């Protein structure tokens, strides 16, 4: 088992053993299992998915939306540090959709490189939140 910690500015959001963790990084999504090589990677905005035990179905995975960050893996444990983490309990689909629309608007009207970059980050983050919200809906069905 891999000990996985997900830490945001608003506290530790996940701190438990997991069988498999899917992490969005700037080099693409990676899957972490026990005894992964020591790695430090820049995270990308997206969805973290955690499979707690071997044989758990995809439907029972736990999901978090993150806004980027840094992942540090050293074999037995992994830590993901992100300034913004949204759990599936914290989002609902309508709000996430509204946020996504706002972010799209920002990207369209962005003035300058920095603003555009910020707006794109926000766009990625809100689409990740929407994904997490949809996962939750499926889960409750």
């Amino acid at each position, binding site marked *: 088992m891999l000990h996985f910690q997900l*830490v*945001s*500015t*608003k*506290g*530790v959001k996940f701190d438990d053993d997991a069988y498999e963790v899917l992490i969005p*990084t*700037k*080099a693409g999504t990676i899957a972490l299992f026990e005894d992964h*090589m*020591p*790695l*430090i*990677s*820049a*995270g990308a905005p997206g969805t973290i998915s955690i499979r707690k035990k071997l044989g758990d179905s995809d439907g029972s995975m736990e999901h978090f939306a993150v806004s*980027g*960050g*840094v992942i*540090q893996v*050293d074999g037995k444990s992994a*830590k993901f*540090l992100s*300034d*913004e983490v949204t759990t599936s309990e914290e989002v609902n689909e309508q709000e996430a959709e509204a946020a996504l629309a706002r972010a799209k608007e920002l990207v369209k009207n962005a003035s300058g490189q*920095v603003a555009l970059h*910020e707006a794109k980050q926000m766009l990625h983050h809100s689409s990740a939140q929407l994904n997490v919200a949809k996962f939750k809906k499926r889960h409750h069905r």
Partner: protein
Amino acid sequence: MAQTQILNRRIRSIKNAKQITKAMEVVAASRMRRVQTAVGYSRTYAEMAASIIRRVAPSEEAKHHPYFKKVSDPKRLYIIFTSDRGLAGAFNSNIISTATRSFVEDMASGKSPSVVVFGRKGARFFAKLEDIDLIGNYEDVADSPEANVFGSVLETIDSGLASGQFNTVNLIYTEFVSTLNQRIRNDQLLPISLSEQESTQLKIVFEFEPSMEEVLEEAIRLYFESQLIGARTESAASEYAMRMIAMGNANRNAGDIIDGLTLELNATRQAAITQEIAEITGGASAIAG
């Protein structure tokens, strides 16, 4: 009789003030408790960000990065955290006196410091100071802010470093030790320097993806944000703690004054009664005589 009326009026107005201080004490206490949990979170976050920085700091890329380069002739930018509101004891004056002491040291070596200030109280004070360069002030920042609040500060740091306006960044804030104890911190944020001992202990060789530069950029951003969020939440918790204590003291003082005035009121009322009785008995004995 006129005297007792005046005393009554004074007692009433002090009772009002006492109620206000009581209310402010209770509000500050409840806010402090809420911010205290946020302080705990921000400390965990800052510790983890620092541990990641320690892993990337020994690399070649980091040694050549402007944020890590040691400077021999520091030109400083101060990021100072004060409060928006007053009535918090010595909270703001402590911060301001620490800051001005540092300014004086800098000016003695012929350099004028740059300042970014958080909080209305500090902004008012530093706007009046000459010989410093106030390059930013922020008001109404949340007690436990989101990371993106500090985006513009990071940009200010970046552009100032690039233009050579300053090469060292200090963070002045109040650390929350306990309800009764708060400490002023004047920490160096830039260049990032972590003690040698900590960085040589690590033996595991890490792989960096997608590249060292990108990891470094992200790690530095997280590190700065964690430090700034930490400073803001610690300041907020200290502010509420100090306001709670200050208002508690004010409340007790008001109680003492009311006690004193009540004694005085009773004495003057009794004096008036005694006087009246003396007049009546005097009159009666005059008629009888």
